[in-house]
């Protein structure tokens, strides 16, 4: 019963946060709403015995990524409110909302009989949740070793890319 309660609260928080991101006029508010969602999702992780991931979620997402967002918002001074009532692109909103609903209903309809039909435990059992970190590590260093290794490339790119992009350069010769 407590599970249901946790789920309900977390789910509401998740959706509320998400809607908050979409609907808040101020980017800082949006970022905070995002944090709410991230926390709620972390709760849902915990509820499903993904303790390590929940921790990472909080630390990396809420701690690093959202902070980065806020940092950029502040840095660039774009913390102005956006007029949500205006929409330049005709039909964009209704179509977008319909499309979103369609995706949702399509996914739900596709899953109407059952969500999972796959083989169980191909990468190793979850166990009872107590050794989650070890299991995850084991999986990372065996089955997903290559993937794990090449994330390093990704990070290098991120670093190099950030440097390239943010590096000051000469005047915009061709800007109008």
């Amino acid at each position, binding site marked *: 019963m407590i599970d249901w309660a946790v789920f309900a609260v977390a789910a509401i928080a998740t959706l509320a946060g998400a809607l908050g991101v979409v609907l808040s006029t101020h980017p800082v508010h949006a970022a905070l709403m995002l944090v709410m969602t991230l926390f709620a999702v972390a709760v849902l992780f915990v509820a499903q015995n993904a303790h390590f991931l929940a921790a990472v979620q909080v630390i990396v997402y809420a701690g690093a990524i959202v902070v980065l967002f806020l940092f950029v918002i502040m840095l660039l001074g774009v913390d102005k409110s956006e007029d949500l009532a205006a929409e330049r*692109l005709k039909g*964009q909103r209704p*179509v*977008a909302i319909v*499309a979103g609903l*369609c*995706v949702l209903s*399509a996914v739900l*309809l*596709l899953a109407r009989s059952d969500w999972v039909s796959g083989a169980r435990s191909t990468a190793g059992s979850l166990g009872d949740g107590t050794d989650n970190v070890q299991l995850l590590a084991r999986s990372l260093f065996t089955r997903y070793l290559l993937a794990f290794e090449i994330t390093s490339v990704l990070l290098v790119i991120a670093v190099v890319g950030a440097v390239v992009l943010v590096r000051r350069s000469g005047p915009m010769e061709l800007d109008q």
Partner: protein
Amino acid sequence: MLEAVWLIPALPLTGFLVLLVAGKRLGDPRAGFLATAMMGAAFLTAVIVFFGLMGREGEERVFTQTLFTWINSGSFHVDVAFLVDPLSITMALFVTGVGTLIHLYAVGYMHGDEKFPKFFVYLNLFAFSMLMLVMSNNFLLTFLGWEGVGACSYFLISFWFDRPTAASAGKKAFITNRIGDFGFMVAMFLIFGTVGTLDYVPALAALGNAPEYTASAIGLLLFLGAAGKSAQLPLYVWLPDAMEGPTPVSALIHAATMVTAGVFLMVRINPVLGAAPEVATFIAWVGVLTALFAATIACAQDDIKKVLAYSTISQLGYMFLAVGSGAYAAAIFHMVTHAFFKALLFLGAGSVIHGMHDEQDMKRMGGLRKWMPVTSATFIVGWLAIAGVPPFSGFWSKDDILLNAFDKSPALWAVGLLTALLTAYYMTRQVILVFYGPEKWKTAARPETPAEAHAEPEHEPVAAGAHSDGGSHDPAAAHGAHGDFKPHESPRIMTIPLVILAVLAALGGLLNLPFGGTPLEHWLEPVFGHNLRQVASSGGAKLVLATLAFVTAVLGGMVAATIYRRHRIAEEKVEPRILQRAWLVDELYQKTIAHPGRALSQWLASVFDAKVIDGAVNGVASLVRAGGSRLRVVQSGFVRSYALAVAVGAVAILAFALVRSL
């Protein structure tokens, strides 16, 4: 002797080739003499071959000489080969004979023309083609000659191409002939499809037994060809215009030889007509109606050559009447005599024109008898011959035809007789206008002052600009304006052929005198066999008919004399405008065929082809472009629109997945 037959066409061909290469170097008049010599040699060869053929017995008188294979394709096989039989050799003889005379005449007539050598190039090429036409042993080679003479006719009619009328006339002749050729070609297809060969001897033998509808179809189609070439209704319209050509051309091609090719063809295919009697009747009627029709027009023409042109059409009508009546020998007989007297008349007319410094309007002539004695004398012989006055040749041949026509149907005969009346009438009119009466050329010089009370003011020309012959060819143009000159007799080189032709025109009847045993008919007999009409009438009836014909001719002449010599009736009353304008047939054709055809072509070219068909092509192209421009709008530059496209695409694919999962 018979083996020399290939020389007959080869000699003019040689002349043609030599003149083509060296004509300019030979110049005036040597080029003309060379051409004449070639024709003369061909004539001699024809004579030799003729005797060679005479040396054989009746049915044996068929000889084929094959030179080489022309076209071979599967079962279709055509040789370049000559068929020597009485018909072809007769044709060859008179073509080369008359041809030689006209060549000779032309040397004088064309003297001084800057394109003198070229004229003889064409003339020799024509002679070659004509000889191929008559000597060929198969339909296709005849067709080669047929088209060859057509092309030469085209060249020669538009010889003075700087005159728009000449150029148009040449084109008209060629195209009208092509309509006939359509029939000829389809007939050949049909013959091949029916009997598998185009060689005369086997094909005609087989076609003689062909079912009537096949024979009728072939006969009609070939008659269409013949009608084009021989200027019969309704395809005669080119011949009057063809008078734009130099007069020797009119004499040779448009009177004596080429236009008779149609008659020759019909005679050649007599077995087919034998198997298709209704077609024969049809041909007879077309012939006799053409004869009458053309004769009526000839009554009101002022152009000296136009009269003769319509007269030619009329006389050709007689020949078809003969063919249709089964009187093939009579047709050939009249063809030969007609060649004599009509060539004579044309050359005489040419001489007159020459002497009158390119005046062709008879209403501005008169009294030339004194000035041009030889010409007038020979012309009068020709007049008597064509009018059907015995014992001149025309009487005999025409009588032969009318006799056969009467045997076939009195109605045909009656129309033929009426035509004979008109013939005598218009020829008498011509003779009187040209050679007798006041010398109108002295006073009629200035068109704006009508000299004679009875002379009509300027007639509208029948075909625009058809008036003067040889505007540029004669140095006599330097003589100056009308009225300052005296008509003169033509040089001897022109009068000699006139005299020879006059003799032939006078005595031509001897070829086939009814009481002389009809040698020509006898000679040609093997070609016709049972297809030849055997006149059932008694000798007395024949005599009555002949007398009637004679009386008619005299009557016609007298009427003309009454009007034009004695002026008992005003000329304008007997020259109604509609006749002057040839029953407005040209205009009718313009309105009903040429104009709609032109309009159709114009519509096809500028509307249908450009707008509809090409428009569709370009329309597809613009459609693609328009589609591109329309689609570009979607590519709006807004990243959110793009994302929406991705989302919508995802929805579509998911929807499909959903459908598949159901």
